[in-house]
């Protein structure tokens, strides 16, 4: 390839970002994680599934000309020019120890295990920072008034990144409160699916053993073929 040909290749547009107050030039369109790696950071903490599910890569950032502090997941947030970034891979948080079997799905559970919950000022700071766009304050307020189902429902997509708790002026651990609410609802209040019990009986009665054996005996090539040919719409859940 000669110099002229090199010049004709598409060039990555580079932008300037700041990580821990140091300036880096990274390709535009990168996520925070790929930008960090491009800049030479070796990520051991603050990185996980890279698919927006695990909540390990909580990041805080500010944009040029904007006083607001934003929260986002490093794997799902695209860098912008002049962005200031820091990752917050862990938020120290009180975590109540309990045996779910010994608890009851009543409002008093929160009084005992997370009494700081009632310090909530309804300021909505948690909602502002949530990278999942959850109505964090609303689920905390549902817990305050003992509405476990609503607390579980509104917090369902929480990935426990911890940003809400780090920002809360009342120092509540929102994500642990929500986890407790979902556990209680799951164990005691949610409608039990009969299909799950039925499926467990079928598994125990070895209904699927032969099918699994058949798959295990396939060569890797045949297994791949079967995988890509499978009929998604016919899957019965």
């Amino acid at each position: 390839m000669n110099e002229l040909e090199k010049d004709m290749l598409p060039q990555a547009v580079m932008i300037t970002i700041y990580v821990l107050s140091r300036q880096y030039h990274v390709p535009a369109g990168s996520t925070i994680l790929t930008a960090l790696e491009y800049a030479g950071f070796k990520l051991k903490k603050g990185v996980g599934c890279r698919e927006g599910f695990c909540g390990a890569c909580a990041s805080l950032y500010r944009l040029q000309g904007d006083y607001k502090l934003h929260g986002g997941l490093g794997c799902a947030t695209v860098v912008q020019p002049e962005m200031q970034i820091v990752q917050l891979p862990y938020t120290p948080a009180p975590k109540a120890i309990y045996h779910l079997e010994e608890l009851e799905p009543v409002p008093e559970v929160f009084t005992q295990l997370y009494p700081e919950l009632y310090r909530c000022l309804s300021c909505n700071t948690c909602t502002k920072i949530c990278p999942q766009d959850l109505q964090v304050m609303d689920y905390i307020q549902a817990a305050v008034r003992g509405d476990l189902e609503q607390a579980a429902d509104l917090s369902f997509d929480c990935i426990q990144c911890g940003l809400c708790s780090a920002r809360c002026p009342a120092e509540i651990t929102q994500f642990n409160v929500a986890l407790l609410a979902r556990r209680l609802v799951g164990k005691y209040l949610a409608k039990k699916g009969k299909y799950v019990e039925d499926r467990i009986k079928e598994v125990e009665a070895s209904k699927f053993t032969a099918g699994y054996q058949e798959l295990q005996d396939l060569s890797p090539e045949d297994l791949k073929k079967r995988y890509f040919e499978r009929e998604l719409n016919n899957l019965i859940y």
Partner: protein
Amino acid sequence: MLPQVVMIQIPYYPGCTLKNKASNFETSALAAARALGLELVELPRWNCCGAVFSLSSDDLMRHIAPTNIFLRVQEMNRDHLVEDEYRLVTFCAMCFNVLRRTNQRLRESLEDRNKINDFSYLETETYQGRVEIVHLLELLRSMGWDKIQERVQKPLTGLKVAPYYGCMLLRPKDVGIDDPERPTILEELLRSLGAEPVDFPLKLRCCGSYQTVPNKDLVADLAYDILSRAQKAGAEAITTSCPLCAFNLDFRQKEIQQKYPMFLPIPVFYFSQLMAIAFGLPQEVFGLAGHYANPKTLLATKGYLQATSPLEGG
């Protein structure tokens, strides 16, 4: 035959306690209001009002919670859940007090309003003081006591009830729903239900409020003073509009009985329970299960409850 009523839809803020300890207040009040043509529509989203109005002048953070609630009323209008209805009804005397005082402060101070609106930038609207906080008792008074009387099917004739106001409905004067020294609104309601209001000197005395948590004994003494003075004046029951007053006057009777063995228990009703009974509504909306001092014996003696039907109302 009851006259056909046209339903009016008004936004309604329950508050946390009415979803828990005082659920009998909510059940009975909503049913009684409905019987009068008032469909109180609960805010689709709401948070705790803060329970106590913050007196610190420089701590605006404490006033954000009530402001959120006012914005929900605007949203209900925007989403046509109600039509051009900016009144917000509450039953709980404490929520009422916090909401109305915050609203007053925000109406008076453009600076406070701007600061809170700016802080709450996730909201789709700003608050400019448009919402009107209304206690259910005020709404009843504005309808006219004769309208309440017309709806009564089982007048509470001969029932001697002492109205207990406490603090939050009447004070401070400029947010109170009635004369802070000589209120009559509960008496008027009782009369229109056919009951006999019993005046007694401690109807404005503080019940001890949140002292009930760290200092049960103090609250038992305060409640004893209030209840025994009402009984001396001839009351067979007490009525109130505040879940905390109701709790202190009712549930502290346990401690009172231990301390003062001569004390006879006296039932404490939310005014809405008496309305539901007098309106002849189904027994399950009375909410008689959530009491300490048994209300059923008195009501059965007076013939307001059918002795044959199960008494475990809601």
